[in-house]
């Protein structure tokens, strides 16, 4: 997780997608980075610091750098946006996951990543989390 913040700190502003953890969002903000916290979950509708939109289907403007925290739950952001990506996905295969991430390569391929700056895998609670920092520019 700390690695994630090492990547984020290279950017002045960032769009964060599908991140239910306010701890992560607040940590990024404390790094003096401007954050658009975009989440499709309608439970966040009335929260002032959340842009409650579905970035896949709604008209949402993304920053050049995008952190997608739950890639297994959505259409790949790299198919819709050109920029720099910090991507996290897992192979938990939860019933609500439309796109289980089973490898670094899957994240790279789905998002048309042309250059990978860094990547790693972490095993937590019997399933794998995959992280990629790269660009499709």
């Amino acid at each position, binding site marked *: 997780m700390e690695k994630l913040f090492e990547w984020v700190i290279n950017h002045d502003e960032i769009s964060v997608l599908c991140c*239910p953890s306010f701890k992560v969002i607040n940590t990024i903000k404390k790094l003096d980075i401007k954050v658009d916290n975009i989440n499709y979950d*309608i439970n966040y509708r009335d929260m002032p610091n959340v842009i409650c939109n579905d970035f896949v289907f709604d008209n949402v403007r993304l920053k050049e750098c995008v952190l997608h925290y739950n890639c297994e739950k959505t259409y790949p952001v790299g198919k819709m946006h050109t920029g720099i990506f910090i991507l996290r996905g897992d192979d938990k295969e939860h019933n609500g996951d439309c796109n289980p991430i089973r490898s670094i390569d899957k994240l790279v391929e789905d998002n048309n990543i042309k250059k990978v700056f860094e990547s790693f895998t972490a095993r937590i609670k019997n399933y794998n989390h995959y992280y990629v920092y790269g660009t499709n520019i």
Partner: protein
Amino acid sequence: MSNIKINCLKWGTLYGPEYVNRTYGGLKKHCKEPFHFVCYTDNSEGISSKIEARDIKELRPYNTKMVFTYEKLILIDKDEYEKNLWIDLDVLVHKDITDIITRPHNNITFIWNYWNDYERLSLFNFGRGVSCHTNSSFVAWDKGTASWLLDYTHKNWKKIEWTYKSLDKYLFYQHFRKNKLKLWEDGIFSNYNKQGYQLKNKITLFNTSHLYNNKNMKDVKHYELHESSAADKWKSYSNGL
């Protein structure tokens, strides 16, 4: 000529032709207005000659294993009558529904799962991608009033196909979320397997699709129409066909 068209779909072997004939019979018994009934199917054998059978392929512009029963949406703008409906085969009409069919439908109208706790089951879990509180087992619209939904679906198909396992989920996450759907009022529908195995209200669903992959429901007994306590009533609907 009638100005009402009611459609159903049957493919595979889960339901036999008797399900089609009895669905038609139930509607005939409980709707006082004449209507034209069409079944889109991959096998018309055993379907009553009073029912127009058409090839299910007409409703399959997309080849997908996702968005289960998306074919229903392709009925929109297809040879529409003034009033259009589709009904699932695991639905039993058991009281008069003339008003429900003939009233104005100025937007396409879906079922809300009143028998489930919205806040606890659907709203709470929305972000996890598992929620679904809309149901497309009995749907009505007036001519031209549902075009927006078909247009949106075609335009966004690639993303929809990637994201949603079923039509109902797509409708809930994209169109209920944006308040675009009209919903039937409470008191019309009931769910046999979720409401004490009884026929309540006017139309009862025997839908069991919510069991798919749901470990919590494994021990709860669920009945299809033909094995339920309503089987005799249901069978009587094919008399004279």
